[in-house]
């Protein structure tokens, strides 16, 4: 057998899961298992206890209320993909989830698992970064909420402590008709991105940018927002020249370098993909404005 031995626990409630997590040594939470079990098969991760939260009540579901989207941590990537609420209110997430793994892995993989795993190239954390998501975390002392900027601390490291469980994601929705785009380059469809770009834009009736968010994955130890680029976009009408100029700014990023891709190649991808994402998000935002006006 490939994984090292472990004891298996199936709590039915969040309280039970938290109690087990607090009392057991070297325990890990098992959600979709699409990253954890692969790592266990390699014995990169060797927990003594697995706490399977798939039977915990109330940990999954997608709700939209008062301009806010709430997604339970155990919500499967498949459910994000086929959710009308997500497609309608948070189209960036719908665009991104289609790039996450494959049908067979999305059937099991969860949004909470993806966030807690915190692979620096992963798409869903990048969407959460672009949307300034809030991450809900339950622990022995109750619940706390962490802004995404303080959640993903570094490479595969988050604010979730060893005795805590990530329970939900909340996103303040952008106005209906906002522009969005997710572009990435991966060696094979469904792989983790070498570089991925999430873009969100709002424009006024004259197509001037009123609000912008640009976030890149695969360039740093965690998703990286580009506030300088975002500021440079505000008040501008995004013609090709303007987009090329701000894309050049994205291409000047300091990036990581590893066996998948060199720094210069990641910078090249950051520039090209930022340009594509901004062009597409802008076209969508302007089209929605034109439709609303007619």
């Amino acid at each position, binding site marked *: *057998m490939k*994984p090292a031995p472990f004891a298996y626990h199936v709590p039915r409630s969040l309280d039970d899961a938290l109690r087990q997590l607090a009392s057991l040594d070297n325990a890990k939470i098992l959600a979709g298992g699409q990253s954890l079990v*692969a790592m266990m*098969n390699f014995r990169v991760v060797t927990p003594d206890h697995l706490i399977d939260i*798939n039977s915990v009540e109330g940990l999954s579901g997608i709700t939209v209320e008062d301009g806010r989207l709430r997604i339970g941590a155990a919500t499967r990537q498949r459910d994000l993909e086929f959710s009308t609420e997500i497609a309608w209110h948070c189209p960036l997430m719908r665009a991104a989830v289609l790039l996450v793994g494959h049908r067979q892995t999305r059937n099991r993989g969860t949004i909470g698992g993806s966030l807690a795993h915190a692979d620096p190239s992963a798409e869903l954390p990048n969407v959460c970064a672009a949307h300034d998501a809030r991450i809900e975390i339950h622990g022995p002392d109750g619940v706390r909420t962490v802004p995404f900027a303080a959640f993903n601390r570094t490479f595969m490291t988050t604010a979730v402590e060893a005795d805590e469980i990530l329970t939900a994601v909340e996103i303040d929705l952008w106005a209906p008709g906002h522009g969005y785009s997710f572009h990435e380059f991966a060696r094979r*469809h469904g792989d983790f991105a070498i570089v991925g770009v999430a873009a969100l834009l709002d424009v006024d009736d004259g197509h001037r940018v009123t609000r912008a968010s640009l976030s890149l994955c695969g360039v740093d130890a965690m998703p990286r927002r580009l506030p300088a680029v975002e500021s440079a976009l505000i008040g501008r009408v995004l013609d090709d020249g303007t987009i090329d100029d701000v894309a050049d700014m994205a291409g000047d990023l300091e990036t990581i370098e590893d066996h998948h891709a060199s720094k210069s190649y990641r910078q090249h991808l950051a520039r090209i993909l930022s340009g594509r994402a901004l062009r597409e998000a802008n076209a969508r935002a302007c089209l929605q404005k034109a439709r609303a006006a007619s």
Partner: protein
Amino acid sequence: MTVKQAIAVTVNGKQYQREVEPRLTLADFLRHEINLTGTHLGCEHGVCGACTILLNGLSTRSCLTFAVQAHGQEVTTIEGLAEPDGTLSPLQQAMAENHALQCGFCTPGMLITLTELLRDDPNPDDAKIRETLTGNLCRCTGYSGIVAAARQVAKGGRGIAGD
């Protein structure tokens, strides 16, 4: 050595009860505990798709699922696709007719994935078929025959390989 747990899993309509270690993957359970060796193991870390089965009707990597997680659940494997009398499913028949396998190693996973696709979306276009197959690697066929088999079974049966 950890304590074994009693599980009951329904596979292809038949219930199996076994005592297993929690670390036993569903794939190893199928192959070694109940001798259904049609499910193949390639990479054993969720990349190649050879071990794909249906878990409660949804395609799932059986190498990334523990057998204990399938307790009380329903599993369909390649052995469950044909009729009880051995008559191949339309997709299995189309795979044979379109030369959609050579060594056959990836075939069980391919069939499970495409069976799910055609159940949920009876008339997928080629782009959808190819996108769905990105989770299953084949090193022999170049995929053309596999796509052609899916296309043949798709509602309206839009032709065969090479068109």
